[in-house]
């Protein structure tokens, strides 16, 4: 503008033109009257209005879905920023503390709550995948009443959706009627770990005196508890402490995967396998039948039929007490173990004697610093013997100072039998299935289903349909974990709080609130906060007074709610002394024919989580099988039976026959079949129904040890079945493919002693010096991302894989697609066997996009859809991808995943494409369409978050504070991620470690995933 002015001033001749800018005479004969009646303004108004009317009339005005714009922003919600709420996971009785990430009010991710004293910021696969159950399309939307109309004439049941208040009225009437008729009100529940729910149950019993509770738990610890009481007297059990243990001996106990609090155990055990502190490095002996996570990670694995476990312990006692004189034995024990010896045991069970001698040597040497742990499936006498050996070895620090808290004992076989007989004799007025599934979990010997026909009023409280709810007359939908209030205490020392993070999505109520409401005078006037108030009232009265903090109750309550945990005073260490009279050298198990070991599945719990597609598709940590259970057996057993992988066998035990596909699994004892529970659901959702075989019937009513059957028969039957494995199964006898992972330097490992002697030895595969290059290397001046995975710490638990699925909106593809090799998970756990079929050595390796500096995928993409970022990420531009799959072909690690279908649409007829799942997706991660390649992004959304945060604060981004989803979930902290240009970052330190290596160095793709070699703590040759 200034320039113009100057111009005008300079050029005088322009001046006269300026007044003529507007043509003269325009306003001369201007008259308002002559103007068109429709002014421009009015015209615009009419056009606007008619467009609006047209738009409105075409839209469905009846669609009155609630749309709440954030024009008045809730105080705690910032659009685009996540909120985290501390809560408690109720997926199993461990009740880990969790942090739920919500975006604009929708829960999208679950991580561990770092403030929780037991779970310490970690949560298991089920806990993480549980978010899918919240949005599961099969959740029941509102209460259902089923009129069992005269079944003689009408075989159809009337299913009516009914209002809660009507149902409340009807049910309270039924309850009152049962009470007045003095008929039993039976409530079947899963074991409770909530003190407030316990109080509620007690109150409910006061209101309705004929109430009787039954607690059903497939994986009870009765054997362990009975042994504890016999060993140490009637005191509460204490959890195990692995922190000080140098020698860990697990007997049929998968302490890293399924047994006790495996998350806590993993952290403690693995933290003492630190190459840099080798004097603390523990040694794990796993004595087990089926191959478990613990067996895979052990330094020595002894394969043993569980019927021989007692003989094993007694032989050890004999060796240590009588041969080595490591301790003195009381007379009855000496007599009991006289007939056993390690030599005889080794010969009888085809076990390497040297390993057994090593074990005895180690136990004698590390007196007071070892720990023996027996699995809960083993019979009582083994537990007693193990308790005895632990106390003989003076292992005092193996118990934690806190003790387990038990509210109700689990119901025994006889209690269930009497329930069934009462049901049959019509003595049960009302049967309430309180979020439990007895029809599936009780073996058919009980005859629960038949008995249920004799009960007129069965009420099911459940999230979605199951085998039990189908027997009911009322099906009441209950809140999910994330919609409910609660408190949980599994041990002395702390109480964990649960709070809802989303309003109930459907017309559901919290299960405790339902019971509480039925105790009210007017149950039809339900208030949403009824249980919340009840919980607070109990806390004010009981917890607040015990803790007695220096604040008022409100501050205490909100503080605890914020932390998700309230710490209580702990009682002192129990003084345990073993009662030698409890020692019993007679085994109740005798191998007779085939032994069937019935194991817990890693991810489906007792089958409740079989409804979760992510968990079904998460490969089994050992066998890599998805979507099925099978009969795992050794190669020699399969040869004896004349079957191969994927053939069929008929296994009969406990008078029941089932047909199972064969899986040849290294490391299993002869004449033993390892099977898993949790499959064969029949009345759940589309995901779970008819997946695998239900083996509950193998668990009989009368058992010494319900998970071990020693009287089974196995016969091959004609036919073939296709198991869906994510990794090819090669026999260890196939010379051609054997040990390729070692030959190719994919897995590098050595023993601890060799490493201490010569740390450089691991480097012999590849050189440290950079490969020759004819071009200038790309420089990464700022941040450069890299990851280091310590294979010494990785147990192969697969929690990283599920965390990645949730974080990155990874679809479920289904069994057929897994068989074809099209699973989508960005993170996979590779498992390799070496050694012999009898005693395999297992190596594991998490495999994900390596973000190579010389990424071979990038130069072959014809449309530049995959590129390199200036901070070293290998990126995918989904919009640009046409899907030639060339990048995947050229990826040496085969970590790229291709959307062969729109898998959400394709899986189970679009089951996971339904509307209810839309809020599940992480809004920061694109949902990929069909025909697009995808892969690990290093959680670029978290990187961008941290970067924008730094920019906002006016700081240079130095790459600190970024964590990937897999890293957060890793229970052993094996994964480290960060800026490798920063010499102080954790990842740089790991890269500088002598154990560090990258795979396939010879092809010079320069991966940015660094692996730290695994060390095995085997015995030095000269030591024994």
């Amino acid at each position, binding site marked *: 503008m200034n320039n113009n002015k100057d111009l005008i001033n300079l050029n005088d001749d322009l001046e006269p033109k300026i007044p003529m800018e507007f043509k003269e005479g325009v306003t001369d004969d201007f008259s308002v009257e002559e103007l068109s009646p429709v002014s421009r303004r009015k015209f615009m108004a009419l056009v606007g209005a008619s467009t609006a009317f047209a738009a409105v009339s075409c839209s469905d005005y009846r669609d009155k879905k609630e749309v709440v714009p954030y024009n008045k922003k809730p105080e705690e919600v910032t659009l685009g920023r996540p909120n985290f709420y501390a809560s408690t996971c109720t997926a199993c009785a461990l009740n880990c503390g969790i942090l739920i990430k919500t975006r604009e009010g929708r829960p999208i991710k679950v991580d561990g709550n770092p403030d929780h004293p037991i779970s310490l910021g970690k949560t298991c696969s089920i806990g993480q995948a549980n978010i899918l159950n919240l949005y599961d399309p099969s959740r029941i939307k509102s209460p259902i009443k089923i009129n069992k109309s005269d079944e003689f004439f009408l075989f159809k049941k009337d299913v009516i959706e009914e209002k809660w208040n009507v149902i409340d009225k009807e049910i309270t009437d039924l309850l009152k009627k049962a009470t007045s008729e003095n008929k039993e009100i039976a409530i079947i529940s899963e074991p409770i770990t909530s003190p407030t729910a316990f109080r509620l149950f007690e109150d409910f019993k006061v209101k309705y005196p004929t109430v009787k509770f039954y607690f059903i738990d497939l994986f009870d610890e009765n054997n362990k508890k009975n042994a504890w009481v016999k060993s140490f007297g009637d005191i509460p059990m204490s959890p195990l402490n692995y922190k000080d243990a140098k020698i860990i001996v697990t007997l049929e106990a998968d302490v890293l995967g399924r047994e006790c609090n495996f998350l806590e155990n993993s952290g403690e055990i693995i933290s003492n396998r630190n190459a840099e502190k080798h004097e603390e490095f523990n040694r794990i002996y796993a004595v087990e039948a089926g191959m478990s996570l613990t067996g895979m990670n052990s330094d020595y694995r002894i394969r043993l039929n569980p019927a021989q476990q007692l003989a094993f312990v007694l032989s050890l006692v004999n060796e240590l007490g009588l041969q080595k004189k490591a301790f003195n034995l009381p007379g009855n024990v000496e007599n009991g173990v006289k007939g056993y010896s390690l030599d005889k045991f080794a010969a009888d069970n085809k076990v390497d004697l040297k390993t057994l001698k090593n074990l005895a040597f180690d136990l004698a040497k590390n007196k007071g610093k070892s720990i023996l742990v027996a699995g809960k499936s083993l019979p009582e006498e083994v537990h007693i013997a193990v308790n005895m050996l632990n106390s003989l070895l003076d292992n005092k620090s193996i118990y934690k100072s806190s003790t387990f808290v038990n509210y109700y004992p689990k119901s025994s076989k006889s209690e269930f039998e009497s329930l069934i007989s009462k049901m049959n004799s019509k003595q049960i007025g009302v049967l309430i299935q309180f979020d439990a599934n007895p029809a599936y979990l009780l073996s058919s010997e009980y005859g629960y289903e038949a008995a249920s026909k004799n009960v007129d009023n069965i009420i099911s409280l459940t999230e979605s349909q199951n085998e039990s709810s189908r027997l009911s007359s009322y099906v009441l939908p209950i809140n999910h974990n994330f919609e409910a209030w609660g408190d949980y205490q599994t041990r002395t020392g702390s109480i964990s709080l649960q709070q809802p993070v989303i309003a109930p999505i459907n017309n559901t109520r919290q299960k405790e609130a339902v019971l509480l409401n039925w105790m009210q005078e007017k149950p039809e006037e339900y208030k949403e906060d009824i249980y919340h108030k009840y919980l607070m009232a109990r806390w004010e009265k009981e917890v607040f007074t015990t803790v007695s903090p220096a604040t008022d109750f409100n501050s205490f309550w909100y503080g605890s709610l914020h932390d998700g945990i309230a710490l209580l005073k702990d009682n002192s260490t129990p003084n345990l002394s073993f009662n030698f009279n409890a020692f019993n050298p007679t085994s109740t198990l005798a191998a007779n024919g085939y032994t069937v070991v019935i194991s817990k599945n890693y991810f489906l719990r007792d089958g409740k989580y079989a409804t979760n597609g992510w968990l079904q598709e998460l490969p089994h940590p050992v066998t890599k099988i998805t979507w099925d259970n099978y009969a795992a057996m050794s190669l020699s057993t399969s040869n004896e039976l004349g079957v191969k992988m994927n053939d069929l066998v008929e296994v009969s035990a406990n008078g029941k026959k089932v047909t199972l596909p064969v899986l040849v699994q290294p490391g299993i004892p002869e004449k033993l079949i390892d099977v898993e529970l949790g499959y064969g659901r029949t009345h759940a959702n589309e995901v779970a129904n008819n997946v695998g075989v239900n083996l509950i019937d193998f668990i009989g009513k009368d058992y010494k040890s319900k998970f071990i059957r020693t009287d089974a028969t196995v016969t091959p039957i004609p036919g073939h079945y296709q198991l869906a494995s994510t*990794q*090819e199964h*090669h026999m260890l006898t196939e010379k*051609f*493919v054997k040990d*390729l*992972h070692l*030959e*190719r330097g*994919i897995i590098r490992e050595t023993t601890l002693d060799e490493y201490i002697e010569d740390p450089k030895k691991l480097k012999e595969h590849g050189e440290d010096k950079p490969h020759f290059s004819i071009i200038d290397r790309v420089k990464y001046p700022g941040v450069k991302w890299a990851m280091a995975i310590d294979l010494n710490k990785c147990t192969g638990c697969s929690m990283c894989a599920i965390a990645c699925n949730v974080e990155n909106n990874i679809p479920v593809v289904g069994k057929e*697609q897994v068989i*074809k*090799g*099209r*699973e989508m998970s960005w993170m*996979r756990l*590779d*498992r*390799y066997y070496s050694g012999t079929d009898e005693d395999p050595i297992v190596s594991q*390796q998490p*495999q994900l996009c390596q973000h190579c500096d010389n990424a*071979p995928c990038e*130069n*072959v*993409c*014809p*449309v*530049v859809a995959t590129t390199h970022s200036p901070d070293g990420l290998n990126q995918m531009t989904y919009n*640009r*991808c*046409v*899907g*030639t*799959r*060339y990048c*995947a*072909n*050229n990826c*040496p*690690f*085969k*970590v*790229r*995943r*291709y*959307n*062969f*279908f*729109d898998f959400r649409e*394709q899986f189970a007829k679009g089951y996971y494409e339904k509307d209810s799942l839309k809020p599940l997706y992480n809004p920061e991660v694109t949902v990929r*369409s*069909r*025909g*697009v*390649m995808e892969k690990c992004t290093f959680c670029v959304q978290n990187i961008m978050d941290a970067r924008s945060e730094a920019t906002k604060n006016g700081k240079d981004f130095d790459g600190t504070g970024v964590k990937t989803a897999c890293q957060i979930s890793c229970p052993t902290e094996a994964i480290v991620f960060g800026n490798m240009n920063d010499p102080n970052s954790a990842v740089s330190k790991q890269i500088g470690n002598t154990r560090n290596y990258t*795979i*396939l160095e010879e*092809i010079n*793709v320069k991966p940015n995933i660094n692996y730290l070699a695994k060390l095995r703590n085997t015995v030095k040759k000269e030591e024994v």
Partner: protein
Amino acid sequence: MDKDYSKELSVIEGKPSLATITHDISVPMETMPNKAFYIALSVTLTFLGIGAFCLILTFIYGIGLWGNNNPVGWAFDIVNFVFWIGIGHAGTLISAILFLFRQKWRTGIARFAEAMTIFAVMTAGLFPLIHVGRPWLDGYLLPHPNQHGLWVNFTSPLLWDVFAVSTYATVSLIFWYVGLIPDFATLRDRTTNNIKKLIYSVLSFGWRHSNRHWQHYEMVYLILAGFATPLVLSVHTIVSFDFAVSILPGWHTTIFPPYFVAGAVFSGFAMVQNALIFIRKVFKLEYIITLDTLEKMNKIMLLTGTIVGYAYGMEFFIAWYSGNPLELFTFVNRAFGDYAWAYWIMMTCNVFSPQLFWFKKLRRSIPFMFVVAIFVNVGMWFERFVIIVTSLSRDFLPSSWAYYKPTLIDGGILLGSFGLFFTLVLLFTKAMPVISIAEVKAVVDGSQPTHHGGHE
């Protein structure tokens, strides 16, 4: 054996009059198709229909209907592509390279071989377009200015393919068309049907058989032959780069360009030979497409088949000699792994069967050579299968290995590609002269200018 070797032997049997030649070649275009033609056409159209149906299903549901998986990202799709590109090699080789080498026997077969080239390249060209996950975005593969500022990746061999194949298709088409112009003029002059006349008039560009026209024509044809010659070699070289430029053991091999070209010529000749055996019989053109010509083709198959066999052996040798365990594993795996059946089909068909052509009797036996040529095509299809699928199914990390199994849809699309190709071939035989009338006339005994006026 009473041939006079003191002068060049005629490539045409007997001494047919020029009018006979014109007549015999033009007959199919001047008569209505017979029953056999309709039966053949209905078969090929059925195949084409099956292929189209499978393709529509693929467009609706996705590539998942095929057997491809992770790690085998490419399978039938790219196998078919390379196979058809290979088939498309004989035509230009015969018409351009043999033309430059003054091989007169080529005149009888050049036109038909060129037509097959065009159709094979058309068929092959489909596969890169349909093998992508989102075929509606195929345009992204072409460098075109756009407001997003997006450009293609010139380092990707797939993009080189786009250019190599489209250039080859364009040049082959022009070459073929230029050769057709004098024949179109002949047909124009012969026909009595006005519509045909109009069409042939337009197609013949006003050709008047004038001396001047011939002079220009000869020059253009020579230049185009010179232009097409390097393309014959470059197309399959570049197709082989799809594999050779990658880092996969079994793909990353420097021998691929010559080996692929030899293989392509091998399979191309086999396909041309197969088709010509029918053509010469059905159209009674045995005196133009003589047994001698077929024998010469068989000799080329013997040569290229031996080169291919050498390449197989050399690959194995280098896999061992290089000392690269990954490479050695891949090759041992090919011969003895899960896909050994495919490998031995390939070896039998490609290496052993053409060796029988050393025997003159077998080389000149029409039923025998027909069977061998079929074998060669089967073998060459399996060669691509072996290279692509076995290398992908077992690569670097044993954890990612997986077995590939084709689906019915895969088979349907393969069938459809044959349907498309042979439908086009059939239509061609009734629409255009299958032999170059003008060129054949030039090689008939006595048609060359001589000092003695054609008399001894």
